[in-house]
């Protein structure tokens, strides 16, 4: 079941769009904000509100990179793996992160703190390499800066 808060926020969004379906992406984000990801039940309940079949809505949800249909950690690291960042040392940054967290791309650390995902160009090409943690952008990354950042987000390892 959708929570009261979720329902309230979704109804507010429905008013912003011309059709119910058009509010779908925003509504999926609302569910994701409250649950961390979009579970099957969320798809089922939301599809009824939007006047779509669950499969139709799942087709939309799985299309977009930033709608998570699997559980993620408390914080999501989006590391830019596109050309400018790659040239400026993406591989070094990635292997440092992998070593520290003990996980690869697409995985969540055993303590549930971080999920590590690749992301296309973050538009920080002049400050490469770059990544986001949740909603914050970090740039000119070095291994030292990464250590400091993950500590700030609660890493104890």
């Amino acid at each position, binding site marked *: 079941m959708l929570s009261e808060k979720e329902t309230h926020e979704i109804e507010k969004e429905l008013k912003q769009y011309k059709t119910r379906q058009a509010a779908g992406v925003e509504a999926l984000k609302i569910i994701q904000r409250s649950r961390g990801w979009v579970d099957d039940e969320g798809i089922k309940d939301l599809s009824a509100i*939007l006047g779509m079949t669950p499969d139709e809505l799942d087709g939309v949800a799985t299309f977009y990179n*930033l709608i998570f249909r699997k559980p993620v950690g408390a914080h999501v690291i989006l590391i830019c*793996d*596109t050309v*400018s960042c*790659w040239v400026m040392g993406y591989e070094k940054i990635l292997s440092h992160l992998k070593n520290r967290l003990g996980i690869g791309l697409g995985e969540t650390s055993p303590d549930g703190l971080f999920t590590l995902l690749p992301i296309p*160009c973050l*538009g920080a090409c002049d400050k490469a390499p770059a990544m986001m943690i949740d909603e914050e*952008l970090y740039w000119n990354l070095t291994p030292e800066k990464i250590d400091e950042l993950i500590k700030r987000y609660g890493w104890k390892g």
Partner: protein
Amino acid sequence: MSERPLTQNMRPDGEALTIKEYERTGGYQALRKALKMPPKEIQEIVKNSNLRGRGGAGFNTGMKWSFVPMGNDAPRPKYLIANADEMEPGTFKDKMLIELNPHQLIEGMIISALAIEADIAYIFLRWEYRLAAARAQKAITEAYENNYLGKNILGSGFSLEMHLHISAGRYICGEETALLNALEGRRAIPRAKPPYPQICGLWGKPTVVNNAETFSNVPHIILRGADWYKGLSRSTDGGTKIYGMSGRVKKPGLWELPMGTSIREILEGNAGGMQEGYELCYLIPGGASTEFLTAEHLDVKMDFDSVPKVGSRMGTGTLVVIDDKTCPIGVLHNLEKFFARESCGWCTPCREGLPWVTSILEAIENGQGQAGDIEMLATHGESLWLGRTFCALAPGAMEPLRSGLKLFKSEFEQHIIEKRCPWR
């Protein structure tokens, strides 16, 4: 120093211009002027200014608008959309324009909406641009509070609604017909053209999609005129251009320069040249989907007509410099991996071909290339080329590959024969 209408009033501290600051530097004067002009006259001025679309294709903006049905018999509502999806690799100009001067974009959109008699406008922004989202939303609210948006704008009788739509990430959403599907809450798969969006766009209504930088030019053109605008340029295209450069240069960044500035001036004059210990090997002129240029092309002017003369495109005008310490096969692998991952999967050559190309490049890079691989890549360069796929993503993906096969023949062969990457 030449004029820089889009950026000269921006704050040096990185904060956005407030509505008051924007107004103090002439902001919303162009709108006041445009509200007194017939829509067709606005279209005509923009057409004559030779403002060409900054999303990459360089279509004349005023001309694009002229296909929209006008007058009382036109289907309603009509829509206007700013494309700020900006996921083209190496491109970061729209982000800066929105973060530092959101009102310039909004004013440009309102004037453009006037020109096509649009009723509803959207800014289509990628999710990752969090700061731009916050600033654009604030600016929209301020514009409503000052009656630059909403009903009966400044008593003119013209009304316009504006919404910020934040996407959930996928490169194909930037393709203008896929963007329409994304806004309707569908999978963002491109639509067949014709009908063009100007006739049958969002929810089947007339719709204009322009890039965020394109709209940011419009207030200046209306305020100062088409001739002034053309005079800013060093080429036949009008205006200035937000150029950018990244890679191993001393001072990567963005600069507003006269349209038609040469690559050498951007590299040496603005980006400070290459970093110590690195040499320029080649450049990607305007995003991942443009063919490579080399040191022999440094004097080419960056504009929509000059770059095609040497076999590439200006694209988004944000250059990525590749140095001699970086493996060109690795760069190609990186670019094609991006395209393969972001392909929408709708048509077979792209959905099946791009992962194939990527895996061949990966094998070659890792020293596991085989005889016949180069030919297989070249075959894809043909079978995913213009006219063979449903949209321009796949041919765009083939542009760097085709030029890479020509430029780096010996590097390809060396990887395959020596079974290793000489750069590692």
